[in-house]
């Protein structure tokens, strides 16, 4: 049985519910024949990918839904072999170049050149060009982006690119000026609520207005997360009411515990306990920057207002160091120690 998220995913532009203005624009772009390169950006769970797939369908017809996975091998200049997975249909191709880390330039150059130099085989195809969708474009290296710039101009008759990114900050200016920027904002709480209500109706689940409202708020305007939570609630409970607790992921519970522990007791022994928990999280592949971000937001309500700017500042600082450094645990512990020190100092000043 498929998850609700996949089962209820809209397949065409008509079925999309919120951001109607945007859907209308995408449709007219797809129909006008002169389709530009796109850069679609927005937070995760806002529906970027869904919109892109729907646009592709509008461009090429139902053929884009017949996809296959291709494993390709690329050679780098130093003769290393790279395995790379491509999701492709006859009309389009979807790649995630950040999978191969620093070698993304090789993949971009080889693959795009190959696509661009072959004409569309199918005579009955609606468009002359092929579309390449690039996921996680913000993680592309500078080199790869520069290579992209050349390719975009050179092969524009045969190739259109759709870049998907969470933010445009890391996209170089020449690419931004060559693409049409499309911002997909996260759905509002009301949007999420109406979608949840529609989902409940489809699944024959009872409609619980209060619960849906809470889910919408808990999800942080992330529709994917909201739907997953919604499904989890209904799967775990026979009967749902307004007050049914929403199950939170284990790791979030654990981070919550850490936050509580470090604000309650500030001793070296406690740091050792927390270290074990951090290792537990890290070995379960929770990204360190997610941990530090969640920890920051969990600690915030537990400390005094005057400490909050500090908590945020050090979270941002250590998160930056995690990105530039190599070993995450150092920075996580340093952050914990900083919080402990701040809380301790604050309490001491209260006593005096």
């Amino acid at each position, binding site marked *: 049985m498929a998850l609700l998220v996949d089962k209820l995913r809209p397949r065409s532009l008509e079925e999309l519910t919120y951001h109607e203005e945007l859907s209308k624009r995408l449709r007219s772009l797809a129909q006008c024949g002169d389709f530009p390169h796109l850069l679609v950006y927005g937070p995760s769970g806002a529906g970027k990918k869904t919109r892109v797939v729907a646009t592709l369908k509008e461009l090429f017809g139902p053929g884009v839904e017949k996809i296959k996975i291709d494993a390709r091998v690329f050679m780098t200049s130093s003769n290393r072999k790279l395995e790379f997975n491509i999701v492709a249909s006859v009309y389009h191709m979807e790649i995630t170049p950040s999978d191969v880390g620093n070698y993304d330039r090789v993949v971009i150059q080889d693959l795009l050149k190959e696509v661009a130099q072959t004409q569309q085989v199918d005579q009955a195809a609606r468009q002359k060009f092929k579309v390449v969708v690039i996921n996680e474009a913000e993680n592309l290296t500078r080199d790869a982006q520069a290579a992209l710039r050349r390719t975009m101009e050179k092969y524009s008759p045969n190739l259109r690119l759709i870049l998907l990114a969470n*933010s445009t900050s890391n996209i170089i200016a020449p690419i931004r000026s060559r693409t049409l920027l499309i911002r997909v904002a996260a759905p509002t709480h009301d949007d999420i609520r109406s979608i949840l209500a529609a989902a409940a109706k489809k699944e024959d689940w009872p409609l619980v207005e209060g619960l849906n409202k809470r889910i919408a708020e808990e999800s942080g305007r992330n529709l994917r997360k909201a739907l997953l939570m919604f499904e989890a609630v209904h799967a775990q409970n026979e009967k749902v009411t307004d007050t049914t607790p929403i199950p939170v992921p284990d790791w979030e519970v654990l981070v919550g515990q850490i936050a509580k522990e470090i604000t309650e007791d500030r001793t070296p022994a406690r740091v050792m306990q927390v270290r074990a928990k951090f290792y537990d999280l890290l070995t379960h592949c929770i990204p360190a920057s997610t941990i530090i971000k969640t920890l920051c937001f969990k600690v915030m309500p537990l400390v005094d207002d005057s400490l909050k700017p500090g908590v945020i500042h050090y979270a941002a600082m250590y998160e930056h160091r995690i990105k530039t450094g190599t070993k995450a645990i150092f920075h996580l512990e340093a952050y914990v120690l900083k919080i402990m020190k701040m809380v301790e100092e604050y309490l001491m000043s209260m006593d005096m």
Partner: protein
Amino acid sequence: MASFFDIKARKAAAAAANGASSGNAEKTATESTKVQPWVEKYRPKTLSDVTAQDHTVTVLQRTLQASNLPHMLFYGPPGTGKTSTILALAKELYGPELMKSRVLELNASDERGISIVREKVKDFARMQLTNPPPGYKSRFPCPPFKIIILDEADSMTQDAQSALRRTMETYSKITRFCLICNYVTRIIDPLASRCSKFRFKSLDEGNAKKRLEDIASLEGVTLEDGAVDALIRCSEGDLRKAITYLQSAARLVGAAAQTGGGDADEMEVDNAAVTVKVVEDIAGVIPEATIQRLLKAMKPGGSGTVSSVVEDMVADGWSAAQTMTQLYQAVVYDETLPDIQKNKIVTVFSEVDKWLVDGADENLAILDLAAKISGIMAGR
């Protein structure tokens, strides 16, 4: 077109239906100009068409009459017409026929390592001149040298630049170089000293506005009041960016109107106007109201909490870099803030900017920025 490969039949057909075929050619010509980017389509054709660079243009026009040219180094911010100027100059000097054999243009998208400088540039520089066809010289000056244009020269490696030094001098009798770059400091001194430098200043508003309005009326795009100003504001003096934005905007609003047709006539049917909002959407600019809301939340005793405003902005998908640029503008030009506070705030901006460039989490970075600024504003 069954007789496509039969040349005789084609000629006969062409002779018979001259009118029809010329009409056909025209149609394909309009098709190709339609898909052409407007930036290319409206590139200035002659030196006098180049807007807002009076000083440079007068100097170059004088050289045009004297039929001699120094090596040149054009520098200035992007989109101010550096490439357009040299192309227009080359066109005026050589005319369409000699242009191909006398001008070599290399830009950053061509491979431009040291080997290319050694081979391609040197070969071209070494090549002897061809004589212009008789009668051609009366129309174009055709001075006895070739021009090599190195566009985006600041992205050339140091080695490649130093390899140019000798080449420039050895073949100076028959070849002139024109280097184009954004940052003159990235050009090594020995090269810079061999060229006469031309600085291109960023376009003033009046000229940019006029140009954009011209293009809009030629393309049959209706512009709402203030849309041109929005274009100029969003593009920060870069005319190329402004024209690209204009084209995207026209495509976006016009796309619905011209679904059926491929003809140029139908372009004029679209009566939907380009609005300020559309322009800002395309440029990815955050609406002024949102920035003001954030600013208000940061000020002491302001309405709403900073964290909720920031969360909303992140959920709406505004990029952190854009938020920073616009917030910076808003803070620096805010008259109500004392200078000493601005001083501190700008330091915060520089720190956070570095974080973002290194790829730190946007949500945390912006939240920290906002928290710190509000702390400074409160006088802590």
